């Protein structure tokens, strides 16, 4: 077991200028606010939260697609900002949500998959050819399909292409941003199984972002819950699903609709006020929707606590 975690994120924040209407002054939108975590090699960190919680911005910062306003991402102990783009590409690769917009429609599948190799500029053409062919087969596509263009493939097949592209440089970390949300449920299962197989075989580390808690429960070894830019709770997957501590985590878990007839619809136990990243509430950001809120929740920011070795919680309630 190595002592340096493979991925570590330290006090990462990202702010945007929000553009309201033409006549509204620009506001500062804190998409991600002071997030820190570490991840050991071979683990899968699931990140869950509703739209606008900052999970995609966090992923973009880890990928180097978005400059953090403050804080730093470390990969194998080295700050991400110190790596050049080729070195970064050898360590971290993405798989995005929409298999229709993540592949260049004007290139063949082989060209798409081999792009990271070609961008390195150090590989011989026959080496590129060999590795592309090997990977095509590994993700379950035929060599003949490698000569096609993306519009000739189905959504599931395209997502396999995206996975192949992410793996061709043999990276250490793969950031999966909602990789199955755009797919049908029968195809989703194929892709989830493929991702899991590849992780074991290639000793990969995943950051797996999803709004679907059931999927996260299936793939992740630990889970982080985000709300309006903050990490409100983090724990080992089994523990988090067994004993959710934050009221928001509890609400999220309650709203999972499993295909079990007769259970009826859950009472999620949330107020009606919807989160707005451009107007952050004072105190705990969740308090306007929290039915258990205490008076101090509206005024004081909740402290960061560690109820167990693995659990991290940001809440005034016990």
């Amino acid at each position, binding site marked *: 077991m190595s002592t340096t975690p493979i991925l570590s994120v330290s006090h990462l924040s990202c702010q945007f200028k929000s553009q309201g209407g033409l006549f509204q002054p620009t506001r500062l939108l804190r998409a991600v606010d002071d997030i820190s975590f570490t991840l050991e090699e071979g683990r899968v960190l699931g990140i869950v939260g509703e739209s606008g919680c900052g999970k995609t911005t966090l992923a973009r910062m880890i990928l*180097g697609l978005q400059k953090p306003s403050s804080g730093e991402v470390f990969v194998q102990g080295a700050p991400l900002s110190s790596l050049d783009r080729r070195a970064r590409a050898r360590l971290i690769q*993405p798989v*995005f949500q929409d298999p229709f917009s*993540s*592949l*260049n429609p004007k290139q063949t599948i082989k060209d798409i998959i081999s792009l*990271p190799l070609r*961008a390195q500029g150090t590989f011989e053409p026959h080496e590129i050819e060999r590795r592309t062919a090997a990977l095509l087969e590994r993700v379950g596509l035929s060599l003949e399909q490698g000569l096609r263009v993306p519009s000739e493939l189905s959504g599931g097949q395209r997502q396999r292409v*995206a996975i192949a592209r992410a793996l061709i*440089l043999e990276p250490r970390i793969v950031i999966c941003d909602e990789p199955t949300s755009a797919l049908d449920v029968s195809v989703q299962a194929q892709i989830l199984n493929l991702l899991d197989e590849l992780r074991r075989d290639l000793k990969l580390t995943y950051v797996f972002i999803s709004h679907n808690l059931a999927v996260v429960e299936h793939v992740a070894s630990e889970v982080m819950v985000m709300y309006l830019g903050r990490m409100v709770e983090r724990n080992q997957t089994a523990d988090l699903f067994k004993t959710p501590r934050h009221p928001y985590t509890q609400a999220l878990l309650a709203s999972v609709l499993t295909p079990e007839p007769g259970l009826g619809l859950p009472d999620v136990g949330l107020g009606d006020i919807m989160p707005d990243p451009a107007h952050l509430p004072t105190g705990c950001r969740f308090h306007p929707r929290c039915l258990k809120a205490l008076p101090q929740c509206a005024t004081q920011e909740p402290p960061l606590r560690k109820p167990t070795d693995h659990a991290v919680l940001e809440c005034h309630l016990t």
Partner: protein
Amino acid sequence: MPRLTQASFVIGLGIVGVVLIAALFGPWLSGHDAFAQDLNARLIPPVWMEGGSTKHLLGTDQLGRDYLTRLLYGARISLFIGVLTVITSGVIGTSLGVLGGFYGGRIDDAVLFLITCRLSIPVVLVALAVVGLIGSSLTLVVATLGLLLWDRFAVVARATTMQIRSLDYVNAAWCSGSSPLAIMRDEILPNIASHLMVVCTLEIALAILLEASLSFLGLGVPPPLPSWGLMIAEGKDYMFFSAWVIMIPGLALFTLVLGINLVGDGLRRAFGTQVIK
């Protein structure tokens, strides 16, 4: 695709093809010199009109020059100016638009500012002024129009680049370690090319019309070069008696521009793109 669109596209392509061939080979085949004057044979009407002769199929102009030959020669000038202008303006506009759309921020502000300034300048007036003050020549007309007509390229390239820049395949290229230049070349340009091709056709048509306008006002292609606009201007004094002197070059101009626009429209439908106005 609707059938008529196909038909109109083919018609447009046919018109452009015929004009192209006529422009390339016509002046040699017509059997006359476009510049040879014959003051004894002035303003002979076309062959189908009373007084026409088979020697001059489209008649002669006020200096007795063969009208068909001048018309064919004029096609050469129109196409030459249209294509060269669009190459110039296309390079300027596309570079600016792609840079602005790709980098955003300050660079985009600067590009947007340039576009705004360019749009606020009245094209015909400034082109006339430049040619009027410096003196007319073919090169100057191309250079002036090229420097003035890049706005639509820039606007379209910028808007489409912005759309594509945020797509995940561009993000994936970043994550693959591609350089900004490689991303613009391999990921963005091939995907905005269809939009730019449509703009190309529109702008060639526009450049041809503008050249004709400048020449018509006497500040475009210098005589005795036979530009269609100049031919109309020269014929203007005789149009009330022999309307054909302005009808023939005018129809040629109209047909060529219509043909190019039909091609552009066909391309737009084929690519399924709505060119941003």
